[in-house]
């Protein structure tokens, strides 16, 4: 058993002991006559136990969460210190090296050239009328591509030369018998960022006794440093935890006396706990939003926002080689927005009337027996997994629609169509709208209905003139909830609407939605820094913003038209 686990166990034992200690002391303080206590003995127990265990356990938890990072940083700093003389040697070597210098200069010149061509292209693009010269434009584009490739090649040459120098310095140092730890430090401090992280990760793996991705003398040497830091940290934190626990126990136990308000203290701790829970929920949301935002910003640094929001072409392929066709891909998301809108529209055309009318029937007309059976049945619809709806759409509805419209004389009806996805999605949303609307309609006070009936209104007049207007805010809320379900729905569209990003208003064609594209972009092996994968975050951000706006609008509508009934 590890030291940390033992300490944790000890703290748990102290926590339990603290409870009984506090309790016993409280009872003893009033000589068994617990009526004289301000708080029940158990509260004194809780109070002591919480202050004994909680801070110490939190300390251990923090250690568990952040120890690796701390050890990594400490190890890295120490390795760099060890390697400082070698780093100085490398700097000298670089300065003395003429070849390196000339390569650097060449790279700078090439970059300047590429930028000049880019500026030319930009000027031509802005030009209007007769100045426009597509041929020149194409030629310049080709030139820019060449220039950019040359820049890349030059940068690589610089790096290569640097690598050679590093290797030479390291070899010389090794020949002179420099300590392994210094060499390890040199290796890690001179490596590019990714390699450095890999090296440190391997170091920690060895230190933890896990299998590293490779093994070398340098790694083993670095790992011994890491192990030392790890142990120091572990004993330091463990000792601190024990001290904190003991101090808490001693301090709070001495506070226990008949008039001590242990109950109120426990109460405020409970409040703090509840507050913490809600903060965690909020922080998670904020975290998700920010990760969306930052990845989207990375995406927008390679694809302009205007092109993403207003471009009409969506084909997010990224070429593997520079000379491949469609090298940069097209990231105009309008076809996705249009597809999402079309399918949502179809779904709502299905779901709103059916959902609302069934809610009216269930709440106003249906007898209690019918209602008791129908409402749960309707709600079962909400319990069907969306993937089941998906293959229902794909295997039943889509062929039926295709058959129907082909029979009606339409040509080339796609198997996967916006219509079949929208219809099935509408069916999926019916229970949301009907169930929520039903609740809202039921909450309209009977007094309003009575008032209307007493005026000689019929049932349907009462519903359309009095009940529905009174229930309108809730119904609007239900509909907007349905819309955000439809916008965010993925499975049905993946299966039934297709993946081709057509910009069309024809419901018989295959379209694709924001969610489907996110799935397509992120499934399978993907590198996480190409615009292709990053565009998924931008799409996610758009989806989030749409849903957010809808929720805000729904809230405003509800507040604005809310009638106060008491």
């Amino acid at each position, binding site marked *: 058993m590890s030291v940390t686990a033992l300490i944790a166990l000890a703290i748990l034992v102290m926590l339990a002991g603290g409870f009984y200690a506090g309790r016993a002391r409280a009872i003893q303080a009033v000589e068994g006559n617990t009526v004289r206590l301000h708080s029940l003995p158990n509260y004194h127990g809780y109070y002591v136990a919480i202050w004994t265990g909680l801070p110490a356990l939190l300390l251990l938890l923090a250690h568990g969460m952040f120890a690796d990072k701390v050890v990594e940083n400490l190890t890295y700093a120490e390795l760099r210190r060890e390697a400082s003389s070698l780093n100085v040697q490398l700097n000298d070597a670089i300065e003395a090296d003429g070849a390196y210098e000339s390569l650097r200069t060449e790279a700078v010149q090439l970059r300047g050239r590429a930028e000049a061509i880019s500026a030319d292209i930009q000027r031509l693009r802005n030009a209007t009328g007769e100045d426009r010269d597509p041929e020149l434009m194409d030629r310049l584009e080709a030139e820019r591509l060449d220039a950019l490739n040359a820049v890349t090649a030059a940068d690589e040459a610089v790096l290569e030369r640097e690598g050679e120098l590093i290797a030479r310095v390291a070899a010389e140092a090794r020949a002179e018998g420099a300590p392994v730890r210094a060499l390890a430090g040199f290796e890690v401090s001179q490596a590019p960022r990714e390699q450095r992280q890999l090296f440190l990760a391997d170091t920690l793996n060895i230190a933890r006794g896990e299998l590293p991705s490779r093994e070398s003398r340098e790694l083993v040497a670095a790992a011994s440093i890491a192990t030392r830091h790890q142990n120091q940290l572990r004993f330091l934190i463990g000792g601190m935890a024990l001290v904190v626990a003991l101090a808490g126990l001693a301090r709070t136990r001495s506070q226990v006396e008949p008039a001590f308000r242990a109950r109120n203290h426990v109460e405020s701790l409970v409040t703090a706990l509840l507050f913490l829970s809600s903060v965690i929920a909020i922080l998670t949301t904020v975290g998700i939003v920010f990760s969306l935002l930052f990845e989207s910003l990375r995406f927008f640094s390679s694809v302009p926002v205007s092109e993403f929001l207003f471009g009409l072409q969506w084909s997010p392929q990224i070429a593997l080689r520079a000379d491949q066709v469609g090298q940069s891909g097209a990231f105009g998301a309008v076809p996705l927005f249009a597809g999402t809108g079309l399918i949502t529209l179809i779904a709502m055309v299905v779901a709103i009337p059916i959902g609302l009318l069934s809610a009216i029937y269930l709440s106003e007309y249906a007898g209690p027996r019918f209602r008791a059976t129908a409402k749960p049945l309707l709600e079962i619809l909400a319990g069907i997994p969306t993937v089941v709806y998906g293959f229902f759409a794909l295997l039943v509805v889509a062929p039926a629609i295709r058959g129907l419209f082909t029979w009606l004389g339409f040509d080339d009806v796609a198997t996967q169509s916006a219509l079949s996805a929208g219809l099935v999605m509408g069916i999926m949303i019916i229970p949301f709208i009907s169930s929520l609307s039903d609740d809202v309609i039921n909450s309209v*006070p009977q*007094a309003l*209905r009575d008032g*209307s009936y007493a*005026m*000689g209104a*019929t049932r349907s007049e009462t519903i359309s*003139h009095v009940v529905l207007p009174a229930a309108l805010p809730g119904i609007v809320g239900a509909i907007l909830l349905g819309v955000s379900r439809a916008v965010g729905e993925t499975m049905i569209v993946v299966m039934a609407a297709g993946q081709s990003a057509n910009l069309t208003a024809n419901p018989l064609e295959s379209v694709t939605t924001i969610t489907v594209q996110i799935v397509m972009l992120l499934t399978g092996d993907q590198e996480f820094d190409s615009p292709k994968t990053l565009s998924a975050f931008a799409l996610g951000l758009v989806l989030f913003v749409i849903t957010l706006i809808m929720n805000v609008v729904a809230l405003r509508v509800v507040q604005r038209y809310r009638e106060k009934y008491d």
Partner: protein
Amino acid sequence: MPDNQSHSDSIAGAGEAEQPVKVQARDVCVSYSGKQALNHVSIDVPDRSVTAFIGPSGCGKSTFLRCLNRMNDTIEGARVTGSLKIDGLEVNDKSVDPVVLRANVGMVFQKPNPFPKSIYDNVAYGPRIHGLALSKDELDAIVEDSLRKAGLWDEVADRLNHPGTSLSGGQQQRLVIARAIAVNPEVILMDEPCSALDPIATAKIEELIDELRENYCIIIVTHSMQQAARVSQQTAFFHMGNLVEYGTTEDIFTNPRDPRTQDYITGRFG
């Protein structure tokens, strides 16, 4: 069952009825899902006057009121028997359309229940569904007239398009009364119309009831004996589903014949 009187004796009359009989009930019984709520009530209510129904909670006075415009139809399991005539026409007859009947017998409820519409639309609600106004001007006239009769016109004339729910409780109740008289009913039923109001609003409503007496047959259910004494000409005392005593308000309050009535109006029970 009422006391061991024969039916001919138990037909209660107000005695000095100068006005013709508007509502005539004979042996009206009501049960909710088999539970008897009203036992053989027979009563004659005169036109153009205010008749108060008093009695402890659950005595059947509201139930009887709801028979008069067949609001009991909307309650599941309600059963009404006996004869109930307004202007000689049988209310419970199959041929009577409750929708038409209710246009003729207005009702004001315990809690003000304006619809979630503007003040104008609240009053115009009845005329619109019954097609009483042929033009916008006519409808405007009806709305203004009804609001004037309800004593609310001066307070709301400049904000007819505000929601009805924005008014105060007392104003809401007068709005509801204006809504009821907009369809020009002959009988107005009021089910504890002041129980949710403060004394000042109550005084206004009572004043209004007194004015409306000129043109309508008003039946009011109330828990306040003072209110019954103030606004009504006839008073009927209900107890446990029976009509115990019915007579002029003065007689009931100064010279009650039945000991139960005496106990109730002197506050000994209920």
